[in-house]
């Protein structure tokens, strides 16, 4: 067994509290004790919330759902890092064995103009839905599809598409970027569909419309610092942004649409 025996931690938490989008917010300090190193980060927040309910204070609001790293609902900035210190890991999959007894942990929401704060650690990421609405799809009505094996997709092409399609839409790329750019998110969808034969018909229109919507939603520009790739729990590669730029240039210069 290489499993380290679980220990209990006492921690100081500094958590962003904000009652609503228009109210002022600030960091508030809490103490939690007896946190097992086998707990997930969100289970540690569960413990805090039970403590708050007992004392009559409103629990900390945070988004979460599947708690297995795939739904993209959770996400907070932990000591300045989106989703915390582990690479390729969502907040719900971060475990307390990454922390030491006596640590102080600062917990903040995603901070970006395009993601307004709803309450405490919850932000509004509907801008991502609107970017997908602008073209992140293949226009094929139900019932229109040809036999699945009619179009061959070589193994390496499928792998490339799958790696880009793995984006969970959590927004960590935006939260980790000094410009709050959504380029990694947009590029993942553009690359996924541009690499498959099914995505060819709308290839130019898709990239132009998605980028236009991204800009209209007040996301910043990309300056290739790569923080997004480092923070991404789905390990979406920066090379997708290079592909997005190529797709955009090609469409902007040569598209007849």
């Amino acid at each position: 067994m290489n499993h380290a025996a679980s220990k209990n931690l006492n921690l100081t938490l500094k958590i962003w509290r904000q009652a609503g989008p228009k109210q002022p917010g600030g960091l508030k300090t809490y103490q939690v004790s007896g946190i097992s190193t086998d707990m997930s980060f969100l289970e540690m927040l569960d413990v805090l919330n039970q403590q708050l309910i007992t004392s009559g204070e409103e629990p900390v609001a945070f988004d979460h759902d599947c708690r297995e790293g795939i739904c993209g609902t959770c996400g907070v900035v932990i000591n300045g890092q989106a989703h915390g210190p582990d690479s390729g890991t969502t907040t719900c999959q971060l475990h307390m064995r990454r922390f030491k007894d006596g640590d102080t942990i600062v917990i903040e929401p995603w901070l970006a103009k395009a993601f307004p704060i709803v309450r405490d650690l919850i932000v509004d990421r509907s801008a991502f839905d609107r970017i997908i609405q602008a073209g992140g799809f293949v226009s094929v009505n139900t019932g229109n599809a040809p036999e699945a094996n009619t179009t061959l997709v070589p193994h390496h092409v499928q792998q490339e598409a799958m790696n880009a399609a793995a984006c969970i839409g959590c927004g960590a790329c935006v939260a980790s970027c000094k410009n709050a750019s959504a380029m990694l998110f947009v590029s993942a969808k553009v690359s996924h569909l541009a690499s498959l034969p099914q995505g060819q018909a709308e290839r130019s229109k898709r990239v132009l419309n998605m980028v236009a919507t991204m800009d209209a939603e007040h996301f910043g520009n990309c300056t290739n610092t790569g923080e997004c790739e480092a923070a991404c729990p789905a390990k979406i590669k920066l090379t997708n942004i290079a592909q997005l730029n190529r797709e955009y240039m090609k469409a902007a210069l040569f598209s007849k649409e």
Partner: protein
Amino acid sequence: MVTVADTPLDGRCPDGNIANRWDQRKRDLKLVAPNNKRKYTVIVVGTGLAGGSAAASLAELGYNVLSFCIQDSPRRAHSIAAQGGINAAKNYQNDGDSVWRLFYDTVKGGEWRARESNVYRLATLSTSIIDQCVAQGVPFAREYGGTLTNRSFGGAQVSRTFYCGGQTGQQLLLGAYQAMMRQVSAGGIKLFTRREMLDLVVVDGIARGIVTRDLVTGKYETFVSDAVVLCTGGYGNAYYLSTMAKTCNVTAAWRCHKRGAYFANPCFTQIHPTCIPVSGDHQSKLTLMSESLRNDGRVWVPKTKGDSRSPDQIPEDERDYYLERRYPSYGNLAPRDVSSRAAKERCDAGFGVGPSGMSVYLDFSKAIKEDGEAVIREKYGNLFHMYERITDENPYKVPMRIYPAVHYTMGGLWVDYNLQSNLPGLYVLGEANFSDHGANRLGASALMQGLADGYFVIPYTVGDHIATRKVKPISADRPEFHEALEAAKSRTAAILNVKGTHSTEHFHRALGKIMWDHVGMARNEKGLLHAIEQIKSLREQFWQDVKVVGSGETLNQNLEHAGRVADFLEFAELLARDALYRDESCGGHFREEHQTEEGECERNDAEFSYVSAWEYQGVGTDSILHKEPLTFVDAPFGVRSYK
């Protein structure tokens, strides 16, 4: 005492050759003309595979669709967590698969407790689902030559499972979500996120709308429609610990039940054999390790009781590969209910491993030796990674430890062949209905059912309701809407007014413990009667002692949770009563009184070959049981053996 209705319930299936029944029904269904469709509004609640595919397909047809979800985006519904794959009878492997075989495997897998006509339609539609998803750009795994590849899943001796790494549910859901987003942009779908459905509005016996609460502002709203399509998933979180997402709940389905919709087979719950074991009291949910792992992983425990050696120190001949031993023809791919009970049997007998002795090994060393680590990494890399993050153990080096956990619920609201409940205008799709999996669902069949219902069944059947009933426009000023709105408001107010001493979490965990101990993998009369009393008493305590902080006018997750737990506390009693009344063992429902000498299920076809559909009579009042008889002609009753 259970009151049984005199008239048997009719599933309204077409007659004749089973292979032609769906075509026959499509001929009989009335149509709504293209330019008339835009005059009709359809509410779709939930945006998982069933709800997402239904909303997109109905909007493409021209209906005005109002789509609701409790998450912040439709892309987050729990279908996204499905890992292993989706079945389809394509027979690309030339290994003897066919629509009939998928149909037969599904009926047998469900222990002859599903409706034959529905299952046959599901198997038929399975192939179109793959076509549709590929056309949307779903990146299914491929062979080097570019054709689609398959893997095997439990309960089948053919390879018919299509997959996208370990993220099949995610990719299928994103396909449906993207189709939805296209319709949002085209104006066919109006999207309402962070909205919870709190009631169904029934006018003159027909479902005509819903009541919702805006989870951000706390505002209550009513929505009027010509049909309501409920796609709100399963009720596994009644057990507190399950593999389901934290917000999965029974509220929408339960409120429909309280408005008259029958609830069918609630005791058919699936305990999945391969989940990461519980590590402590803090545990908030359990994580599934895909069944696909059993393609290459071998399940074992030591042959000696209480053997505390580390697994690599236990020689081959001192290991008990109990699934291979008990079920030689299916081995590690025995179906879920069978594998779960086998794990429980070994652990209860003292052969379990790990700190608590409540887990078994899932070992990849043979596959890694034979195929190399790279091949295993490509197939399961993300699952191995997830296992290591949670347990701090490297499964490439040390066998995984697994134990069964609540995973899926086969029961749900009763629907007829058209997926319409007994309340006209209310359709129920996906996991929220009861129709296709009988007493046990086979792996990779939930995705298939959700998408078959949403892409290929509801677009035909909802039009028939609108065309035949000639539903008339109504306004939300009607008293039925006001009454439902006030009922929802006052229930929330009542919860806030208790001002007790224990949190919602406390009650939810307590309920989960009752359910797992007495209504879990093994059930008996004494335990069920005890559970019913305990649930009743816990429900009373909840309404006297729950403490919910904050108000109803803001985002308040604590309040949302309390509302859902209040419904679970009512629903759980029905689940236990159904388990008590079904005095036989079948699939996921194992009554200890009815087992063979080898510990397998002993079914009672003569007395229990029917769907139990319960009609609500009030909280704490016994429900009326409606029986829909099940007959099996094309897949005649047999012994469900995987030996």
